[in-house]
């Protein structure tokens, strides 16, 4: 089944006769979270080590990391601005690099797509939403609720608009994560289904093998598109987080 690629297996089980420690089991998912952290830290360590250590112009890898940093910095500056945007750069940078690396690792054949795990990704977006609401209440106190009343609304329409705005604000908690998880999930399913289809077609006889090269080129294009989606979705997640941060800090 195309869904087999998302199966989580326990690699190392922790058992206790007294407590249920299944939460701490080392599973496929845990292994890939470890991979993501290792890839990000090793890329940085290797890019600043060796001959390029302590040079003003670093290695090409460091330039790549700096390009990502500049992109995130400018994005957060553009969205939040003011004198406080610097505080939120580490959070947005972490989310962006984590999702980007997780998506790209998932694109390597026979690897596990971390960001297709709906529970985890929606868990992150719900946590972010709760955090942003607390931040907004902490910074703006009761004025925070003016977020639900667009300026210039006629008084009779206020109750209806508050309900609609409240709904749209609450939906952010799910939509932020669902967007990423659904994109990754559908992309991986599509590649798996089409790949199997073409494999079956090409393995019938010589004629279908030659004929099958045409849809194979189409699948190749879809794989390239998925690579683009992997990067774009990480960027979208980061830009939406900054936009929601702006809403919490400045209210509109």
């Amino acid at each position, binding site marked *: 089944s195309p869904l087999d690629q998302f199966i*989580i297996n326990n690699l190392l089980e922790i058992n206790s006769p007294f407590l249920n420690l299944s939460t701490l089991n080392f599973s496929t*998912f*845990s292994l890939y979270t470890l991979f993501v952290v290792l890839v990000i830290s090793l890329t940085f360590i290797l890019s600043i080590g060796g001959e390029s250590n302590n040079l*003003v112009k670093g290695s090409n890898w460091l330039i790549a990391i700096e390009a990502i940093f500049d992109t995130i910095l400018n994005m957060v500056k553009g969205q939040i601005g003011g004198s406080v945007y610097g505080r939120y750069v*580490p959070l947005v940078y*972490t989310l962006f*690099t984590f999702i980007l690396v997780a998506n790209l690792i998932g694109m390597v054949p026979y690897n596990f797509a971390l960001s297709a795990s*709906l*529970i985890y990704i929606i*868990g992150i977006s719900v946590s972010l939403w709760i955090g942003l609401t607390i931040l907004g209440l902490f910074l703006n106190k009761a004025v925070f609720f003016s977020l639900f009343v667009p300026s210039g609304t006629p008084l009779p329409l206020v109750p209806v608009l508050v309900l609609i705005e409240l709904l749209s604000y609450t939906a952010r908690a799910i939509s932020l994560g669902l967007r990423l998880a659904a994109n990754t999930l559908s992309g991986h399913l599509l590649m798996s289904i089409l790949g199997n289809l073409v494999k079956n077609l090409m393995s019938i006889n010589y004629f279908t093998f030659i004929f099958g090269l045409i849809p194979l080129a189409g699948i190749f294009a879809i794989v390239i598109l998925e690579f683009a989606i992997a990067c774009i979705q990480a960027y979208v997640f980061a830009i939406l987080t900054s936009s929601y941060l702006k809403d919490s800090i400045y209210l509109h």
Partner: protein
Amino acid sequence: MPQLIPFFFLNQLFYGYLALFALLVLVSWVILPYLLQLQIVRLLITKL
């Protein structure tokens, strides 16, 4: 869908948040200060 088996929910959340927190610490204490220092050094060299 295999990723929606409730047995693995807490496992996913535990390791996922752990990794994200570890990365946040690494980014805010090591990576970003290094990049910022590099940019300040460059700024000093070009403006001096």
